[in-house]
């Protein structure tokens, strides 16, 4: 048994989740593949969105995967870091906007 919860080598084994549930695994990977195809958004734009989301959901596997994917697409480190900041801004905004709820509650309870 691995001594850590995350092992970088597990990323390569991602496809093996299908072995324990073929139908759902296959459907997921088909969907996943389709999502990242060129469409109204370019595959490059999708890769940067995925990188930002990877940071927000704090998935080390996804961060490894989409940093490498970005490099393969010629994405620069400046572009990658800006994408991470977009994710961080939304995430911190999501925290801070709850401040309004706190203010509402405060005001309601206060005389």
């Amino acid at each position, binding site marked *: 048994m691995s001594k850590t919860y995350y092992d970088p080598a597990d990323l*390569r084994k991602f496809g093996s989740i299908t072995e324990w549930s073929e139908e759902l695994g296959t459907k997921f990977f088909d969907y996943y593949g389709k999502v990242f195809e060129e469409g109204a958004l370019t595959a490059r734009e999708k890769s940067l969105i995925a990188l930002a989301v990877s940071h927000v959901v704090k998935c080390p596997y996804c961060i490894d995967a989409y940093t490498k994917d970005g490099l*393969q*697409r010629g994405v620069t480190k400046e572009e990658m870091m800006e994408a991470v900041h977009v994710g961080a801004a939304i995430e911190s905004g999501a925290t801070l906007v709850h401040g309004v709820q706190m203010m509402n509650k405060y005001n309601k309870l206060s005389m």
Partner: protein
Amino acid sequence: MITKSLKKRESELANVNRQLEILSNGIFKSGELPTFKDKISEIDQFPLKPRQLEILQINLGYMCNQVCEHCHVDAGPDRKEIMTKEIMEQCLKVIKSTAAHTLDLTGGAPEMNPNFRWFVEEAFKVGIKDIIVRSNLTIIRSNKKYYDLPEFFKKNNIHIVSSMPHWTRGKTDKQRGEGVFNKSIKALQELNAVGYGLPGSNLRLDLVYNPSGAFLPGDQTSMEKDFKKALLEDFNIQFHDLFAITNLPISRFLDYLIASENYEDYMYALVDAYNPEAVKNVMCTNTISISWEGWLYDCDFNQMLDLKVEGKVKHIKEYNEDLLQNRNIRVFQHCYGCTAGAGSSCQGSVI
């Protein structure tokens, strides 16, 4: 930043047997990953056989003015191996009667061979149709004696293929050495100025993109679009095609993979990206590679691993195209580099 070849540094990887050992041990010996031979046996492509011969690729020597980190030749200013005029004369005899239509001159920096210009002119005289020169670009600006190379190329209608790892300075200099980007830009502008790379021009200028690190090249067409846009907007440079070439795990790139602890992941990435469709078009099926000493190989990578062609004919002095066309091509784990994704060759993707 490296400044010396593996050979000069007396690195253990300067020994090809050590490289072959690494490529056969570990994940391949344990069966974690299939060997290339097993993989192509699945689609009945083993032994791999040649198709129509189209290209003679000649390595004019390992001397180069640059020391690129990913160089599979381990070329550099400290390498003194240079093809002699005598071997060139033997090559010319072969060129006279070969079925190949193209001569692909590489190195090192092929222009640094003192008989380079003579050889190019003689090769046309004996009937070769096209000559490609793999120019590193900076050679043109490295010394006064090379300043007129663009004119020489133009006069002989040479097809130029040049490396350019990125359209930004940082990435280019990291892979190819400090100052390489600026010099390359200047050289490209000079080539444009004499007519190379312009839309509709028959003076062909293509660029080669090698990833600057332990990752595979992305889609060649979209990379080409990005390169064209950036080079035109930032530097007013034009070129024809972009060839995306995968770095093969040999020589200095293998050294880098091991030192950066990326070797296993990179081999996994290559094997995962294995595309059976690419196998039938790999460049060793239409090319013969000739070393500075006149030895014959299936490709430039096999040359660097000293895996000479199978069969009786092994040297240019005993060249026999009929016998060579019947040979079995030698494959090893590095060959996964040519079958990953859309495939990779000296002419870029193969599918």
